């Protein structure tokens, strides 16, 4: 049994996945915004979820502060919370909508889609 544990899997306790990008499908229609958003009616926004535990992987592009906070948390979890898994790179989407004057508007909204997640 000891051997099988060597891979870090703890029996009976679900290991939390590390910080990474997860799916998040946004449906403007379900939000009730389809009476003024012409397109798109839905899109994939993604979201970041997971733990930022020690050691932090380089692809999470942690700030120096996040490295320090994670280190503190790993030494004494009660003293400091872990750093947060957040979007570190976002991209825009185009939206065609009707404004309050009933004009059709094309706009590019920044920071609407998560491209990368990281610990901050």
């Amino acid at each position, binding site marked *: 049994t000891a051997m099988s544990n060597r891979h870090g899997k703890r029996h009976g306790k679900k290991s939390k996945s590390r910080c990474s990008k997860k799916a998040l499908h946004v449906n403007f*229609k379900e939000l009730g*915004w*389809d*009476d*003024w958003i*012409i*397109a*798109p*009616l*839905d*899109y*994939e926004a993604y979201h970041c979820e997971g733990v930022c535990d020690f050691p932090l992987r380089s692809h999470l592009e942690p700030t120096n502060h996040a490295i320090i906070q994670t280190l503190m948390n790993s030494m004494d979890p009660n003293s400091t919370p872990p750093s947060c898994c957040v979007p570190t790179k976002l*991209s*825009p*989407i*185009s939206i*065609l*909508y*009707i*404004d*309050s*004057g*009933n*004009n*059709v*508007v*094309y*706009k*590019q*909204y*920044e*920071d*609407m889609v998560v491209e990368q997640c990281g610990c901050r």
Partner: protein
Amino acid sequence: FQSAAIISPSAPRRNRGARISHQDGQRSSKLLKDIFASSHPAAAHHKDELKGAIVPHEYMLSIYRTYSAAEKLGLNASFFRSSKFANTITSFVDRGTDDLLHSPIRRQKYLFDVSTLSDKEELVGAELRIFRRAPGDLQTSLQTTGLYYIQLYPCRSDRLLDSRSLDPLDATKAGWEVLDVWEMFKAHQHYYHHPHHHHFQKGNELCFQLKVTLGKSDTEVDLRHLGLGRSGRSQQEKAILVAYTRSKKRENLFSEMNEKIKSRRSIGEKEEAAAAAAAAKDAGEERVTHRGGKADGPRRRRR
């Protein structure tokens, strides 16, 4: 640079069930076809509830398709010279009508309400797009060899804003005439949003006057002979003023959407109140004796 889609001129209607997905261009092109298919005249009769719906012009749909496809390639819409590096493109629909009492029509006034254009955004371009229908059986009257000379002026001055020449052969085919009105629009925005001028303004309207002469002569043409008559036009055939703007600061999505939702909801509530009042009047006493049950539907739904 050409638009990415050749879209049939039939009037597309926004269909509540339509879904234009951002995920892959092909599917969205199919879905767009669905939109246009659903707007087929044969299907229109049961879309009464959409009467008065806002119908995007093909130009705006094509802008959306092109730039959202470019986005997937990691290119920003504002990179494109055709969008004049704007990240917001607004289309205002012409509110002017032809003075049918005077026939022939030699001058036209195009009116646009641009009050929703934010003064926080920099105007980087503006053009007036006018749809010229194919003159059809009026063709015989186009007996001229020279070019037509399309000229655009402000309504209150004779300063030429822009002009285009039109070959008689081209005049026999339908098409869009695009005239640059950026300078005038910029001057208007500057004047209208100037703190000292605000209380002099009668409304944030832009007015253009169009005339067409035979070549450089003063002989003015009957605009209907060139397919510029405005009677009987579908929403999508109306002229549009397209403003290209670039916002200096990053848009806060929720405050903007909140504002939109509020303005929509207040319109919705007014309509619902009117409908409820009409229903109450129709139902009369019967509604009073019915406590609960169907007759109270609209009010319960509002609650």
